[in-house]
């Protein structure tokens, strides 16, 4: 055990690391290509039978196609296809960072009650007309969803920093939050008018069919705004996975990083939920898929989480259109049906540890 003259294999570590990084970049590129293919398929599929060529013509030479085709592609299918991408990516990244800062493989916006809290906030606006932030009544639904999501996220955060609280306790607290907000949601549903009830049910099942361009832009903007925040903390977030003491010994301000991350996660999780409802599976499974593919160096894990979540929801959107011809099934239901078998293949087919 001494510093000796460099043997022949001195560059082996460096070169192997470079090769590993390159392999991950190739994997990320493959995921991006698969996502592009899935988005194309999502736009090509629908009750109106258009060919891929017609879809591409509408995309790139829209002045040469019929108004009907233009409307179907630009105003119906593309917002849905892109909403699947932005929502899937947002929920997956939120889940990834939640698992990172809480050191818990079961953490996700859904399992820790953040999605349920957001749904309750949205339902409060729809059923009771209650604005939690009175200044912005016009955006009551998403703002209510965000405020409630943040309340739940902060509750989880502060609970996790209390002495004696273990990761198991956090999961139990999250489950308690899920039950609490689901009970409150049921109460609102019980009291709701028929019209409001239908809107609330929309949340609980999750659906992309009401996607619009403004919703796509808002979700994409939130995602684009938060990703650089995580990217800037890539080394610190990765260090957290070595344990709190180890991260602190590396110079990471663990308390501040956790708080900042939790606030950002609540924004990332709340906005999609307020637009498309509760889609549970993506935030839990997307990060695990990413972890199994590229490990937990956040420089690779973060983009992989984005791509895995987006791909998962995009493929789900395609499947939801193809199971019953002419009908689009609720995406929240299909996500689990598509994701679970895929997840099983990854867990049992890969020798790499999932956590």
């Amino acid at each position, binding site marked *: *055990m*001494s*510093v*000796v003259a460099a*043997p022949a*294999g*001195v*560059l*082996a*570590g*460096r070169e*192997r*690391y*470079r090769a*590993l*990084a390159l392999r991950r970049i190739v994997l990320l590129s493959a995921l991006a290509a698969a996502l592009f293919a899935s988005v194309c398929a999502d736009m090509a599929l629908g009750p109106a039978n258009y060919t891929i060529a017609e879809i591409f013509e509408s995309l790139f030479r829209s002045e040469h196609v019929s108004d009907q085709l233009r409307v179907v592609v630009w105003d119906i299918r593309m917002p849905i296809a892109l909403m699947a991408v932005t929502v899937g990516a947002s929920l997956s990244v939120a889940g990834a960072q939640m698992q990172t800062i809480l*050191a818990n493989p079961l953490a996700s916006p859904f399992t820790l009650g953040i999605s349920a809290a957001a749904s309750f906030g949205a339902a409060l606006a729809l059923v009771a007309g209650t604005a939690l932030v009175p200044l912005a009544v016009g955006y009551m639904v998403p703002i209510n969803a965000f405020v409630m999501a943040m309340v739940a996220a902060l509750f989880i955060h502060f609970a996790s920093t209390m002495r004696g609280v273990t990761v198991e306790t956090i999961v139990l607290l999250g489950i308690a939050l899920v039950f609490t907000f689901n009970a409150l949601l049921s109460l609102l549903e019980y009291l709701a008018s028929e019209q409001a009830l239908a809107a609330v049910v929309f949340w609980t099942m999750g659906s992309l069919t009401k996607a619009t361009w403004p919703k796509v832009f808002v979700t994409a903007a939130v995602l684009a705004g938060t990703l650089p925040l995580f*990217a800037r903390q*890539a*080394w*610190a977030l*990765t*260090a957290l*996975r*070595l*344990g709190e*003491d*180890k991260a*602190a*010994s*590396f*110079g*990471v301000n663990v308390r501040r990083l956790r708080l900042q991350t939790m606030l950002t996660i609540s924004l990332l999780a709340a906005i999609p939920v307020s637009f498309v409802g509760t889609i549970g599976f993506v935030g839990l499974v997307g990060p695990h898929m990413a*972890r*199994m593919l590229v*490990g*937990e*160096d956040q*420089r690779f894990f973060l983009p992989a989480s984005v791509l895995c979540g987006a791909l998962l929801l995009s493929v789900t959107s395609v499947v939801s259109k193809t199971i019953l011809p002419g009908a689009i099934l609720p995406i929240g239901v299909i996500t689990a049906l598509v994701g679970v078998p895929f997840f099983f293949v990854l867990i049992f087919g890969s020798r*790499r*540890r999932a*956590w």
Partner: protein
Amino acid sequence: MVAVALADLGASYGKRTILSGIATDFLHGGTLTAVIGPNAAGKSTLFKRIAGLLAGPGTVHLSGATNGKDPIRYMPQDTGGNAVLTVYESVLLAAKQGSGWRVGDDELNGIDEILRALDIQTLAFRELGELSGGQRQLVAIAQALVRRPEVLLMDEPTSALDLYRQIEVLAFMQRRAATSGMAVLIALHDLNHALRYCDQTIVIADGRMRAAGPTSEVITPAMLRDVYRVEARVERCSRGRPVLIVDSPAA
């Protein structure tokens, strides 16, 4: 050369005082200092306080440091964490904190050098979860050394190592301190290691400093009776090295 002086250092968790009145001025670069004491004496707390990870009364005065950014590095006892990272990545992670995404060849060469020096280059591309406790401890030492600290606080770095690795690591740290001018504080439970490898020793018990100074003057039958509650003596072996012999629990 770097020097550390502690003046009336203390720390508390909430209202409970864990550490108080720690004062010493003999921590110099190039030396190994053992920090010994019974379980829950406050050794880890002292390290965290020196590293600035805990607040409290008193001061840590650092002089002669040339690495203004990160001169003091604490190596925690916990080598846990179940990250899906290779050993190489975990050492890179320690080296890159606070830096950009780009990884230069110099940084990777530094990791290769540390892994080779600790003789764990064969573990480089194994995942942390596949390692034994002892292997994890060696990786933790690599993570601590990769930023070239001038003061290194090692919290029981040999607790999971086999006998061969224990003496290898301590001898390595002794050489490393001498060649790099680093001041090393090591929390140890094996007092024979302190006698053999450490220039000075600080004894902590119940959050207070009970003795401090050259190791041979600090580890005495009286101190062992008082702090460890054992009847023990320090004898010279056939090679002239001091060896601690424990006879019985103190009456």
